[in-house]
C-alpha cells in the first residue's frame, strides 16, 4: 500500500500535520506497519520548470520538428539565452504551440522516466538539424506521470510559469510503501486518509477527517432520469449497493495534479472519470465503478440488477478477457445481461470511452469472502479486489459517493446528477457496525504491564477519532464508522498499546516456578543417535519430505500408499515419502560425482503412509533414521573386502551398541524369508532393498528396521555404486524397547585371569547365527555355573570351489568368579563342542 506524505498532508487539512519525514517513516514502522520501501520523488523533479512557449515555428526540412522559444522568467541559471532572454528548444511534439504553458527539462537534468533505469538519460545542449536544443519540453510519459507520449504536457492558461513543477504538483514528496499483510484486518488503511489519521495519532496529535468524510454526507439530487436497482443479494452478499446517474460529462485526460497523485500511488491514469473513481479509492479504500450509462441503459433510464450468475453465463471484462461466471461470482447486470463482475472488475461492454457523456456511478459493499473466492477462481487480483476482500465499511459508501461526485464536478464542471441516489441497503446488517466495546482498566494493565493514566488512554484513542469515555474502571469505545476491526476488548488493547508505542512498555522476562521442563525421550534418543553417527564419520543430511513419482517408483514403492500433494507449484513435489531411503539415496550419486570417494549419509525424519493414522484420526507418521554407506569402485577396492551389506551392518551394530543397552538380542531375518504383513512401514521401505542381500532387524523379538543392499532397480535408477548399503530404523519401536530394558549396561568382572582360546568350526550349510547358537548351546551345557564367557568372531574361510562349506574361527574368553581356570579344562570343552557341532 503506497501512501504519499504530500497527499496525506493535503487531505488532513492540518497545518500541524507532522513534517519530519524520517521520524514519520520511523513511527510508521514502529506503530503502523512494516515498510517495504520509501520512494523520494523530489530529486526526480528538482530541475523541471513550468514555462511559457513564446513561439513555435516548424523547422524547414523536417516534418515534425518545431523551433521553440520559451520563457522561464529567467528562473534557470547557467543556460544559453537569446537577446530577448528566451531559451531555444527544439520540440518534436505535434501539439506544441505558441502561448502554451509546458514543462521544461533543462540541460543537465535527468529525464524522470529514465531516472531509475540502468541508463538514465541526461539532457544536454544537443544540436538537432542545425539548431541547438537546450533541454526539452516533456511529455507526461517522460515525466513518469502517465503513459501518454503523444505530445508534450500542457497546463491550464492561468497556471503561473517560471515556477518549479514540484511546487505546482506537490512533487517534493516521499511515498511510503507499507506491507499489505499488516492491513489484512484494516480496510480503512487501504486508503491514504486512514494512514494520515494513524500518522497523526502516533504523533499524539488529534486528527480530524475532512468535512466530506461523514457518515451522514449524502448527495441530494434533482433527478432528470430514472435509475432503479434490483438487489437480489441484499440479505447476504451485497449489504449495500448505491448508484447514481451523472450526465453532461466529457471524457478527457485528467488534470496533471490528479494524474500525478495517481501515478505516485501506483495507479496508471486513464481519463478523468476513471481517474476520479481511482483517486477516491486511494483516499478511502472504497472501490467505485463507473458504467457508461448509454451502454447499460436507455437514455437516462437504467435498471441495475445485483444477482447470482445464471448457468453458463459469460462476461467480457475490462482487461479483454472473457470469463464464464461461476457460483461465487456476484453479477452486476442490466435487463439484457451481465455488465460487471461485482467487486472484481467491470465489463468491457460498459467501459468508459471518449464518447461517454453519462455514467452510472456505483459505490457498494460486498461480502469479502465471496469476493475472495470469485477473484481466486478467475485469478484476478485487481486494486478493487485487494480492498474489497478486506471488507471496507458499508457505512462510508454515502460520503464516498458524494465526494466522488464533487471531484467529478471539479474535473468536469458541466457535470450534473441525472438521477436520485439509489441506496439499496440492509439496515439490520448495517446496524451491527459501531457496536460499543468495553475494556476494564485492570485487563488493560495486565496486558501492558503498566497502568496508563485513563485520560491518556482516552486521548490516544480520540486522536484516532475513536470516541472513548471512562465510566468507573471501564473504558467504553464506540468504533468510528470506518473501523470494522474493533469488536473485542483485546482489539482495543492492541490499539492502545500500538498508539502508546510497544517500545514504551516495561520489558521484563516472566517469572516462573523453578520446575525443570518436561523431557522428551524421543528427542533425547535422536540426539544420542545423531551424536553416535557423527562420531563414526557419518554426515547428517536433510532431504525433502516430498518426492516425485519417478523417485517413488525407482524405489519400488507404490504411489497409492503415499499422500499426494494436489497443488504443488513444482512438479518435483508430488508425494510424501514412504520411507527415507529414496530421497537419501538420491543424494549418493551427486556426491560421488562431486569427488567424494566414500561416505555414510544419514537422515532422521518422518515418513507417512495413507492408511496409517494416529489416535486423533490424523496421520502422525513414523519417525525413521536411515543411513546409506557408499564407496566408488576404486575406493571400495582399496579399502573394503567383502560385500557392502556388512558395512551397513557394522554401522547398525555400532549405533545400537552406542545406546549402552544391556542384554540386546539382535536378530537378522533374511528379507526374502521375512513376514512384514503387519508392518506397513517396513514392508513399504523393504521395496528398495535386495531380497537376498538384506535383513529384517529385530531387537528382543520386535522388528526395529531393515538393513541391506539395494535392489537392482533402485541401484540402476538412482545410479548407486555397486558398493552401497544401508539401514532404516523405526525410532519409536526402538524407544519402546529401550524403555522396557531397565537393566544397566555394566556388569562386574572377575578377579581371576581369563583363559583365551581360538576355535574353528565348519558351517555345514548353517548360517552364522545358527553356528553361534549351536556353540552357545554346547558351552552352556558344559560349563559350570561359576564360569562366564565371551565369544568373538575372528575369521572366516571359504575354500575355493565350495559353495556352502565355510569355516568360522572364534575367540573364546572364559573366566570364573571363584577360581583360576586352566587351559586344559577349556580345551576339553572345545573338543566336546566341536563334536557337538558335527
Amino acid at each position: 500500500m503506497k501512501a504519499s506524505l504530500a497527499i496525506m498532508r493535503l487531505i488532513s487539512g492540518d497545518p500541524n500535520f507532522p513534517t519530519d519525514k524520517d521520524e514519520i517513516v520511523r513511527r510508521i514502522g514502529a506503530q503502523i506497519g512494516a515498510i517495504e520501501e520509501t520512494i523520494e520523488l523530489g530529486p526526480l523533479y528538482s530541475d523541471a520548470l513550468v514555462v511559457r512557449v513564446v513561439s513555435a515555428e516548424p523547422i524547414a526540412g523536417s516534418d515534425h520538428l518545431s523551433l521553440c522559444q520559451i520563457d522561464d522568467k529567467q528562473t534557470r541559471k547557467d543556460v544559453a539565452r537569446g537577446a530577448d532572454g528566451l531559451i531555444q528548444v527544439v520540440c518534436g511534439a505535434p501539439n506544441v504551440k505558441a502561448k502554451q504553458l509546458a514543462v521544461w527539462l533543462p540541460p543537465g537534468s535527468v529525464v524522470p522516466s529514465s531516472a531509475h533505469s540502468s541508463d538514465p538519460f541526461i539532457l544536454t545542449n544537443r544540436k538537432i538539424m542545425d539548431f541547438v536544443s537546450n533541454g526539452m519540453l516533456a511529455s507526461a510519459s517522460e515525466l513518469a506521470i502517465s503513459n501518454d507520449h503523444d505530445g508534450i504536457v500542457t497546463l491550464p492558461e492561468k497556471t503561473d510559469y517560471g515556477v518549479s513543477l514540484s511546487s505546482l504538483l506537490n512533487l517534493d514528496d516521499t511515498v511510503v510503501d507499507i506491507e499489505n499483510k499488516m492491513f489484512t484486518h484494516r480496510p480503512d488503511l487501504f486508503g491514504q486518509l486512514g494512514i494520515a489519521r494513524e500518522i497523526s495519532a502516533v504523533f499524539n496529535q488529534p486528527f480530524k477527517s475532512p468535512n466530506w468524510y461523514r457518515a451522514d454526507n449524502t448527495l441530494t439530487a434533482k433527478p432528470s432520469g430514472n435509475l432503479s436497482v434490483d438487489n437480489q443479494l441484499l440479505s447476504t452478499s451485497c449489504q449495500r449497493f448505491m448508484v447514481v446517474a451523472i450526465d453532461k460529462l466529457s471524457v478527457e485526460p485528467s488534470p496533471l495534479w490528479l494524474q500525478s497523485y495517481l501515478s505516485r500511488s501506483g495507479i496508471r491514469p486513464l481519463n478523468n472519470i476513471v481517474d476520479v473513481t481511482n483517486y477516491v479509492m486511494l483516499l478511502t479504500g472504497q472501490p467505485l465503478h463507473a458504467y457508461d450509462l448509454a451502454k447499460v441503459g436507455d437514455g437516462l433510464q437504467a435498471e441495475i440488477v445485483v444477482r447470482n450468475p445464471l448457468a453458463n453465463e459469460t462476461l467480457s471484462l475490462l482487461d479483454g478477457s472473457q470469463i464464464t461466471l461461476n457460483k461465487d461470482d456476484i453479477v452486476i447486470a442490466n435487463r439484457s445481461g451481465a455488465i460487471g463482475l461485482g467487486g472484481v472488475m467491470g465489463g468491457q461492454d460498459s467501459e468508459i470511452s471518449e464518447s461517454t457523456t453519462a455514467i452510472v456511478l456505483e459505490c457498494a459493499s460486498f461480502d469479502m469472502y465471496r469476493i475472495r473466492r470469485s477473484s481466486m477462481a478467475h485469478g484476478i487480483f485487481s486494486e478493487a479486489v485487494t480492498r474489497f476482500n478486506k471488507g471496507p465499511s458499508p457505512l462510508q459508501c454515502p460520503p464516498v459517493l458524494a465526494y466522488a461526485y464533487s471531484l467529478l464536478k471539479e474535473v468536469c464542471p458541466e457535470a450534473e446528477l441525472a438521477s436520485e441516489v439509489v441506496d439499496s441497503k440492509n439496515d439490520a446488517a448495517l446496524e451491527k457496525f459501531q457496536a460499543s466495546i468495553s475494556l476494564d482498566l485492570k485487563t488493560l494493565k495486565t496486558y501492558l504491564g503498566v497502568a496508563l493514566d485513563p485520560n491518556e488512554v482516552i486521548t490516544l484513542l480520540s486522536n484516532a477519532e475513536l470516541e472513548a469515555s471512562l465510566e468507573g474502571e471501564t473504558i467504553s469505545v464506540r468504533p468510528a464508522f470506518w473501523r470494522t476491526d474493533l469488536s473485542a476488548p483485546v482489539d482495543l488493547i492492541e490499539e492502545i498499546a500500538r498508539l502508546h508505542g510497544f517500545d514504551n512498555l516495561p520489558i521484563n522476562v516472566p517469572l516462573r516456578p523453578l520446575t525443570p521442563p518436561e523431557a522428551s525421550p524421543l528427542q533425547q534418543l535422536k540426539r544420542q543417535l545423531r551424536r553416535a553417527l557423527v562420531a563414526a564419520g557419518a554426515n547428517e543430511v536433510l532431504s525433502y519430505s516430498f518426492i516425485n513419482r519417478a523417485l517413488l517408483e525407482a524405489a519400488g514403492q507404490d504411489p497409492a500408499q503415499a499422500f499426494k500433494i494436489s497443488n504443488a507449484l513444482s512438479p518435483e513435489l508430488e508425494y510424501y515419502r514412504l520411507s527415507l531411503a529414496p530421497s537419501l539415496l538420491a543424494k549418493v550419486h551427486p556426491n560421488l560425482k562431486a569427488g567424494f570417494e566414500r561416505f555414510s549419509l544419514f537422515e532422521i525424519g518422518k515418513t507417512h503412509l495413507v492408511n496409517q493414522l494416529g489416535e486423533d484420526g490424523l496421520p502422525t507418521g513414523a519417525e525413521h533414521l536411515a543411513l546409506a554407506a557408499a564407496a566408488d569402485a576404486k575406493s571400495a577396492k582399496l579399502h573394503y573386502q567383502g560385500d557392502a551389506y556388512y558395512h551397513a551392518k557394522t554401522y547398525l551394530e555400532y549405533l545400537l551398541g552406542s545406546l549402552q543397552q544391556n542384554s540386546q538380542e539382535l536378530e537378522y531375518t533374511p528379507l526374502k524369508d521375512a513376514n512384514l504383513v503387519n508392518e506397513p512401514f517396513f514392508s513399504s521401505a523393504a521395496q528398495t532393498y535386495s531380497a537376498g542381500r538384506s535383513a529384517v532387524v529385530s531387537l528382543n523379538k520386535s522388528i526395529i528396521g531393515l538393513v541391506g543392499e539395494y535392489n537392482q532397480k533402485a541401484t540402476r535408477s538412482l545410479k548407486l555404486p555397486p558398493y552401497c548399503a544401508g539401514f532404516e530404523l523405526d525410532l519409536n519401536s526402538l524407544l519402546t524397547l529401550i524403555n522396557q530394558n531397565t537393566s544397566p549396561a555394566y556388569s562386574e568382572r572377575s578377579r581371576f585371569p581369563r583363559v583365551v582360546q581360538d576355535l574353528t568350526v565348519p558351517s555345514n550349510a548353517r548360517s552364522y547365527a545358527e553356528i553361534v547358537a549351536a556353540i552357545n548351546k554346547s558351552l552352556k551345557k558344559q560349563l559350570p555355573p561359576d564360569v562366564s564367557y565371551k565369544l568373538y568372531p575372528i575369521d572366516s574361510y571359504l575354500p575355493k570351489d565350495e559353495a556352502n562349506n565355510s569355516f568360522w574361527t572364534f575367540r573364546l574368553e572364559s573366566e570364573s568368579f571363584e577360581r583360576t581356570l586352566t587351559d586344559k579344562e577349556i580345551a576339553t570343552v572345545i573338543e566336546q563342542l566341536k563334536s557337538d557341532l558335527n
Partner: protein
Amino acid sequence: MNQELNQEVATVREHLMQQLETAIDKAAVLRSPELKALYSRIAQLPQADRAAFGNALNQLKADLMRIINTHQDLAQALPDLDVTAPFALNSEAAKRAGLLSADLGSSHPLMSELELICDIFATMGFSAVESREIDDDWHMFGALNFPEGHPARDDYDTFMTEQTDEKGKPLIAPAHTSTMQHRVLKHYAADLESNKPIAVVIPGRTFRNEDVDARHEHTFYQVEGVYVAKGVNIGNLIATLKVFLQRYYNNDELKVKTQPFYFPFTEPSLEFALSCPFCKMQGCSICSYSGWIELLGCGMIHPNVLSAAGIDPNSYQGFAWGVGVERLVMMKYGIEDVRHFESGRLAFLRQFSASKDGLNS
C-alpha cells in the same frame, strides 16, 4: 491414428514379444530391424498421424525395456548373503568394512542449531514438543481464529493433499508450527490450575508452496513458542525473545525492535527485528544496510485461541512466536543460499565436520 498403422504396430509387437521369450541376448530385441523400420516410417507419415504413431512406438519400446530389465535383474542378481554373519567370508581383518574416521562426521547445521535453540529455551523452563508434517485444516487455521475463507489464509501458500480429513477437507502440509498451538495448549491446560505456566517450544518442518531461490525454500524449519500463565504482558514477550536472541548470538549488546503486524491468532501481533549482529547497526549487506534484521512474528495469544483450547482468557494470558530456523542459522554462519540446507551436498555438510576440507582418500 488409422486402423492400418495400429495393426502394423500390433503385429510387430506380437512378433518381438515372441522373440523376447526365446532370445538369449534379450537386449538385442531392442535393436531389431522391424522396430527400426517402424521408427523410420514416422517422417513419411502425414502430420496428423505422427504424434499418435510415435507414442505407440514409444509405448512398445518401454514395454520391451521393462521385460528386458526384469530379466537382467534376475541375471545380474548377486548371490544371497548370510545376513547373520558379522563380516564377509574370506575377508582380511584389516580390510573389513569399518566406520569412517570421526573427523569426517557432521551433524546437519539446522539440526545442531535446533538442539541449541531448544537447549537455551530449556534453561528458561520451556519443554520441547515436535511438530507434524501433515495436519488438518482445523489445527492449521480453524483453531487459530482464521475464519473459513479469510484472506489471511492467502499469506500461507499451503500445500494440500488429495487425501481428506473426516470432514472431507484436504489435509495440509503445515505452513507454520503454530499448527501445534491448539494441541499444546489443550494438553497442558490443566497445569495452569496448579499454578504451573505452559512453557513449550515446538520445533518442526514447515512448508510453503513457492518457488525455490537463494532466499526461499518450500521446506524449512520453524520453532514455535507458547507461554501462558496468569498476568502475562506484552513486555514479557519482548523480553523473552530478546534474551533468547542475545544468548543465541552470544551477544548481550543486541537490541530488538518491534513493528505492529497482523495475525488472526494473536492480538496484539508484532514483527520482531534484531539489531544486526554483524555490523553493530552501521549497515552491511546482511541487514540490507538498515541496521535491523526482521526475524520473527509474535504476539499475545488471541482470547479465541485460548478459549478454543479450554483456557479462560479472563484468567490467563499468553504469548506465542514463530521463528524461522534457517534465517537464524544463515545469519550465524554467514550462509548465503538457503538451498544448501536440503542439497545433501557433502561439500556443504562436511564444512561442519572437524575435517574442513572434507574430501577423504
